[in-house]
């Protein structure tokens, strides 16, 4: 099912798909607003229906892929083709994001004000990185493009990324020093717990209670930390996770059934 094609046929498929999508978009743009809304709602419903039906319909032993011991129903064999198609659609969403950024920064760059330089920097870094990386990954890539790719990815991007993340440590230190003050009972409890968890996390902290004999193991800071994390923290975060899960389910249902208003279905 959905076997990949190569050579000239591949180009024909890509071209055909582009023409089809362009025609569909042209037809959609001619339709009245109400009709467009119903089409989007119907496509969303059908899209979501696939996985819901595949999950809820009764299953029976069947051959799925190369697995003779699998369980499934008549929709199960379509899971693998869907897994190949849907990520491609998701990748298109990244492309839409790039188009959006180009539109936004294009306008800002053309305004020629003090902020234009930032937008120009965006174009230079985005196009430069993409061009160099694609060139360096070609089978016949020149040593220069490979070296440039290495410089931009390993020399610039990775270190900038690490630097941005490392800066957080400085802010956390400053914020923790200023915010953690024992002004109330709750703040005192929070402070004491934070200190125990931090001490239990590090070797120096564990060293502080290492002298306590094994008989009183429960007094070791790492044991207390473990107890706090598993007996107090875990139930609390689990309750939050369940709440979030139910909320996500409700939002998902609203989007799937077309009940959600705003940017999902309205212009």
């Amino acid at each position, binding site marked *: 099912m959905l076997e*990949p094609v190569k050579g000239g046929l591949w180009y024909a498929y890509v071209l055909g798909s582009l023409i089809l999508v362009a025609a569909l978009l042209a037809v959609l743009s001619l339709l009245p607003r109400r009709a467009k809304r119903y089409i989007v709602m119907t496509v969303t419903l059908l899209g979501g229906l696939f*996985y819901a039906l595949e999950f809820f319909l009764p299953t029976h032993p069947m051959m*799925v*892929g*190369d*697995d003779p011991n*699998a369980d499934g129903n008549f929709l*199960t064999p379509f*899971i*693998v*083709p*869907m*897994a*190949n198609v*849907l*990520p491609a*659609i*998701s*990748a298109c969403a990244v492309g839409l994001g790039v188009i959006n950024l180009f539109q936004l920064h294009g306008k800002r760059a053309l305004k020629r004000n003090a902020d234009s330089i930032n937008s120009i920097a965006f174009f230079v870094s985005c196009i430069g990185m993409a061009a160099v990386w694609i060139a360096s990954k070609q089978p016949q890539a020149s040593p220069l493009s490979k070296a440039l790719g290495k410089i931009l*990815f390993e020399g610039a*991007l*990775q270190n900038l*990324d*690490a630097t*941005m*993340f*490392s800066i957080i*440590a*400085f802010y*956390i*230190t*400053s914020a*923790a*020093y*200023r915010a*953690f*003050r*024992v002004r109330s009972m709750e703040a005192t409890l929070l*402070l004491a717990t934070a*200190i125990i968890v*931090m*001490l239990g*996390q*590090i*070797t*120096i*902290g*564990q*060293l502080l209670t*290492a002298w306590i004999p094994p008989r009183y193991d429960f007094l*070791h800071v*790492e044991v207390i930390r*473990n107890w706090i*994390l*598993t007996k107090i*923290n*875990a139930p609390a*975060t*689990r309750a939050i*996770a369940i709440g979030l899960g139910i909320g996500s389910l409700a939002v998902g249902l609203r989007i799937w059934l077309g009940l959600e208003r705003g940017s999902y279905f309205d212009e």
Partner: protein
Amino acid sequence: MHILRILQTVDRRVLYVLLMLSVTLPFFLTVRLPMRVSPATQALYDRIENLAPDDFVLLAIDWSAGTRGENGPQTEALITHLMRKKCRFAMLAFEPQSPTLCQAIAERLGKEYGSIEGVNWINWGYRVDAKNFLKGFVQDIPAVIKTTNRQEDVTNLNKFPIMKGIKTASDIKLLINIAPSNIYQTYVQFVAGAKKVPMAVAPTSVMVPEVFNYLDSGQIIGMMPGLPGAGEYESLLGTNTKVTRFANSASFAHILIILFIVLGNVAMLLERRQNARAGGAA
């Protein structure tokens, strides 16, 4: 200014310099601090230790350079252990930087342990849309993976003998997710839970409290908690590389934060007491 007031209002630039020193100085000092291995790290180590040679392990590596300080040593420790045990392993990423970063680690350690790409390990590269991808992945791995990081056909068993017998998620003996994000939940939902694949997680320290839920419920069998976890794992492996020094840096940074929090609070309480004695507002 009164000393108690100064202790409560230390300039942030002073804190920044002290933090920088506490993080960087341990790199130049040989300080060996005792390390107690946590039950979660021990469980992960034991699981890998009990794998048979040639068992297939999936390393779901989803970190970028931003968390290299923690996730890098975790990845190194796990790959070292898998190569020592002669287990086969594949690396898969939903984070674009990961394939390049983990390829470099596997290539370097592969030379040390005689582990060959395509035979003992494989890099499946970067993919998008984790949920839909994994739904198909668990059913038919070669049909969904298709190509390696270098766009080579994974079904070519002459070039990739590692793929022999790998059809569905049931062929994976252990799944380990190394990530600073909650992508592990997607793996729990669509791979570990759906196909009963044993799973472990190597999160960053900040993620540890959240991951404890899944450890406590038995949905994951072990965890390597952040950089300290990597240090613990290294002590189990008997290797002593830069991870121990990194762990010392983290220790000193934590101590600095605790010290300043305590100093600030003690100064505040003493000042209140002085004010109360003097008849001023507490």
